[in-house]
């Protein structure tokens, strides 16, 4: 939800600002202090110090006995309408705080003077604390319970029902975790980031290991607090992708591995050799100027249908997209090189189309958000990979690009360009990998973090396990831990359970696009003509406008008529790359 640690770090190339999806938060000490100082409203029990009453309320509430407490008794006497109004207010307050936190973070990463980062972190921690005080308060607790009673629940409209359930889930997630544990987590994560940087720079896993161990342990403890069925990994997974299970992922990933490994091997044996050295150049060595890259980014965003009158564009260290308000979707790019700028624009543009497409009647609720991290990623990857690296799109856009920047692309043909941006290469680094090998990188991480949470692997053995799995799945062993198990920031920021959504995003994207083509047979010929609005409108109608009112599974079934199915992605890869590499896959 709302992040508390200072954010000069970002997921290298992961690009989506995860603010609103991040689940782990701090419960500052002051919360407790304030509660102590407030006299208990229960006049009949003046002899009980406030804090004890609070504990009692708290425990009763957790066990669903909240109705016996004073506040709930009051609520029972109040009308349904009053509770409904109260719920609207609470929900609006949460969304206001969330978007305020979002715009503070946006500014932090774009325009704010670096010298102000501590102060900004302090401002954001106030907003976070306020958010969590409201989310887990006794009042909210009894309010939710009151409205969840069958006779009340059925009187709510569908959106209210979904919202209520969503807030209840967040409420439980946070309220079930003791403040001390949450604080410990926040603290370790705040420290782990700089340690991770040093460990990565000096190639010293042992430096980072104690922190990772602590983070894993805390995740295990929090999983116990929150409760789970089956694997404890389900608890962390659900922070990012509600409803997904470890069992499902195991099946999906097993199938992917089995299919992808031979494909990669075959491609490696192809005689087709591709030169992609020209797609990114350094500033001053023939690359477009920053102003030209900005102009190009605007043009691409507009081409795919992003409404810049309802958004803005800035430069930042790592590209990201953020919902700052109903008509204020922020998009950034790092503007390093030609291809970096193009892929940032298509990727972030995909996120932005989703964010702008959500029904604005939801804008003052927490449902003004993507369904999940994975569905969000499906939209960005659809535009970055499936569209942004397709022949149809480049048939339309390459001549325009070349006309605009003739010198930059001198001597390069459409065919050269298309092959270069689709070059398949086995690399040790995930975030620069192509769409064929990328998912195997994710699977390596998934298997390791799952084993860590399930207690089947010890932190000290992570490097060994990493290298083995890299060899096994991709046929490559990293030179060292810096380009091996230390390469990603996620574990250092406490984001265990995050990785699978990258691959899920790719799979959803392929499946959704397959349906789009079926329903609009002229889709690709329209793209070739430069009409990308057809796709945008379709996605908006089918996916975007729903925001968070449906789960990923509900969306997939409604849109494509079946649950998530790996085959669409595999077929897409086979069809595309057999042509590019002139090989049977």
């Amino acid at each position, binding site marked *: 939800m709302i992040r508390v640690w200072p954010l000069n770090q970002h997921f290298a190339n992961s690009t989506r600002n995860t603010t609103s999806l991040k689940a782990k938060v701090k419960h500052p000490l002051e919360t*407790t202090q304030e509660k102590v100082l407030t006299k208990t409203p229960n006049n009949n029990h003046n002899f009980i110090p406030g804090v004890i009453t609070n504990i009692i309320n708290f425990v009763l509430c957790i066990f669903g006995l909240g109705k016996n407490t004073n506040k709930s008794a009051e609520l029972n006497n109040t009308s349904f309408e009053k509770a409904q109004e109260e719920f609207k207010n609470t929900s609006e307050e949460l969304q206001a705080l969330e978007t305020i936190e979002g715009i503070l973070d946006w500014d932090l990463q774009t325009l704010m003077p670096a010298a102000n980062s501590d102060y900004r972190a302090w401002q954001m921690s106030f907003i976070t604390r306020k958010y969590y005080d409201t989310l887990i308060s006794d009042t909210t607790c009894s309010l939710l319970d009151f409205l969840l009673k069958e006779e009340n629940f059925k009187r709510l409209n569908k959106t209210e029902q979904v919202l209520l359930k969503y807030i209840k889930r967040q409420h439980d997630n946070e309220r*079930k975790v003791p403040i001390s544990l949450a604080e410990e987590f926040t603290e370790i994560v705040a420290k782990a980031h700089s340690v991770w940087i040093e460990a990565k720079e000096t190639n010293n896993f042992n430096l980072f290991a104690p922190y990772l161990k602590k983070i894993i342990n805390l995740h295990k403890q929090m999983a116990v607090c929150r409760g789970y069925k089956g694997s404890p990994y389900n608890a962390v997974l659900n922070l990012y992708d509600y409803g997904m299970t470890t069992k499902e992922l195991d099946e999906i990933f097993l199938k992917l591995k089995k299919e992808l490994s031979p494909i990669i091997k075959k491609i490696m044996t192809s005689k087709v050799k591709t030169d992609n050295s020209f797609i990114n150049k350094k500033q001053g060595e023939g690359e477009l100027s920053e102003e030209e890259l900005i102009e190009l980014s605007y043009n691409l965003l507009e081409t795919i249908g992003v409404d810049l009158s309802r958004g803005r564009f800035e430069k930042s260290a790592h590209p990201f997209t953020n919902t700052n308000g109903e008509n204020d979707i922020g998009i950034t790019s790092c503007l390093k090189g030609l291809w970096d700028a193009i892929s940032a624009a298509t990727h972030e543009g995909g996120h932005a189309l989703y964010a702008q497409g959500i029904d604005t009647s939801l804008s003052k609720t927490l449902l003004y958000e993507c369904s999940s991290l994975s569905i969000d990623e499906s939209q960005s990857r659809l535009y970055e990979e499936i569209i942004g690296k397709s022949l149809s799109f480049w048939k339309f856009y390459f001549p325009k690009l070349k006309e605009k920047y003739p010198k930059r692309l001198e001597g390069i043909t459409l065919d050269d360009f298309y092959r270069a941006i689709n070059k398949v290469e086995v690399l040790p680094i995930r975030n620069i990998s192509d769409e064929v090998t990328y998912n195997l990188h994710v699977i390596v991480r998934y298997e390791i973090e799952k084993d860590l949470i399930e207690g089947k692997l010890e932190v000290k053995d992570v490097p060994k396990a990493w290298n083995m799995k890299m060899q096994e799945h991709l046929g490559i062993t990293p030179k060292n831990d810096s380009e091996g198990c230390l390469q990603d920031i996620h574990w250092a920021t406490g984001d265990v359970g995050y990785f699978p959504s990258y691959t899920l995003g790719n799979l959803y994207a392929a499946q959704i696009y397959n349906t789009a083509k079926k329903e609009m047979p002229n889709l690709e010929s329209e793209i070739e003509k430069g009409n990308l609005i057809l796709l945008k409108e379709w996605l908006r109608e089918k996916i975007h406008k729903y925001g968070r009112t449906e789960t990923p599974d509900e969306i997939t079934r409604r849109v494509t008529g079946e649950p998530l199915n790996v085959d669409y992605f595999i077929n897409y890869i086979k069809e595309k790359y057999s042509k590019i590499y002139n090989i049977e896959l």
Partner: protein
Amino acid sequence: MVKIKKIIPSTSYLTIPQGRENLAVLLKIAEDIQSINTTIAFLRWDLDTYMPPSNSSYRAWQINHLNKAHHDLITSPKLASLIDCFQQKENHKKLSKIEKALVKLISKEIEKIKNVPLKIEQELDEVKIHTYLIWDNAFLTDDFNAVLSGFEKIISLNRQIAEFRGYKNSPYDVLVQNFEPEITTKELDLLFKKLKEELIPILRKISNTGKKINTDFLCKVEEDKLLIVLKQVLNKIGFDMSRGRLDKSIYPFSTILGSNDIRLTSHHRHIWNSMSATLHEGGHALYSQGIDTALSKTPLYEEASYGIDESQSRLYETIIGHSFPFCKFIFPLLKEHFPNELHNVKLEDFYHAINEVTIDHLWDGDEITYNIHVIIRYEIEKDLIEGKLQPKDAPKAYASKVKEYLGFDSPNENESAMQVAHWYDGDIGYFPAYTLGNLYAAQIYHQAKKEIPNLEEEIANGNFHLIKKWLNDKIHFVGKTEIPKEIILRVTGEELNPEYFIRYVKEKYSKIYNVDL
């Protein structure tokens, strides 16, 4: 199902903290208040600079939630009891100077809002933002009708607030004290009467000289080129760009978003107007950056008042920025960047041009006429709040006062009334601070010249370090731990005295217009 762990808070929280612990709680609340204040400031800054305009009502809604949080904090019984506790003699004397100032400030804040219904405050906040945004468009065409209904609501809500808060003499006291603590309408009446008596004859004499000053070369220039000079000048006067930003907005402003994040805005189009605006905002920003950083997470990290704040901006904009020594520094620099525009222009011409007295129906004239416009605005808004004038009649009232004080007819009745945002962004009671700022500035600068040898020579050489350090030490550092009356007395040894400003005007303009004033 797994058993849920219970929270067991450490035992130290089981007792209500005493003495210093209580103070820690108070300071924590003060931190929260400041955090909300600076976050709202940021949301406003963004609204005025980079935010897509279509998002404005959503932004108003966001700000409203923070205002509510602010209101809840200030009106909480816990805070009231803490303040009560520290206002008791035996507790109060144990506090440090900063802590005492904090207790005083918060108790005033509580006084301010405890009797005003939250609904009224919220309504005003919403009307403010909406009307401001309408004004933002309408002022281009002087469309007073477009803002009238918002303006009426703003006046009526402010009148209600004054009634809720209570006052002794004029309801306007309540509003003006939002900007200048402890000043009264009665004091202002006296001060402004004296100014009118002195300044109107001066203007008449200047006008009677019939002297024509050529200002043709003060023209629009290329934005990017000007921006370079503006940044250079900001840097020269001592603004620390690593602790702030300069951006573009229609209406220049400066704001504290954090102790290391002071942002000012300007326009970059006119060779002198933009320079003047940048110096003005630069003066504010130097003040903001000069406050003791130990105060940064308290509401005391703020200028002492709008008037004192304005004294610093006007000091840099007019008293220094329009002085002959400053021209010696800036003119060669401008000439270097704009050789064509300033071709054949001499230093003297330039100095006279920027100080041309333009008795006009508009406000952005010279530093003398300026105060007459402030006084007109003061008189109008006082009448509006006291119920002696209706908002719809404000433009007419303005025009007739222009006729009375400055002696000519306004070509367009609405233009003067539409010129400045404050009536439409809800800041009723703000205007007097502009003239107070001029008066403070003259008195402070008089003292500075006494204490810093060769000050004007240093300025002519482009050395602004001495004056900045002196202002940092004397005025900026204390932030809001002193009220304006205390600051003026401490720094200059006497109370606010308009003579310094009148003398400054007479001395300067008698030379420029070659007339006995």
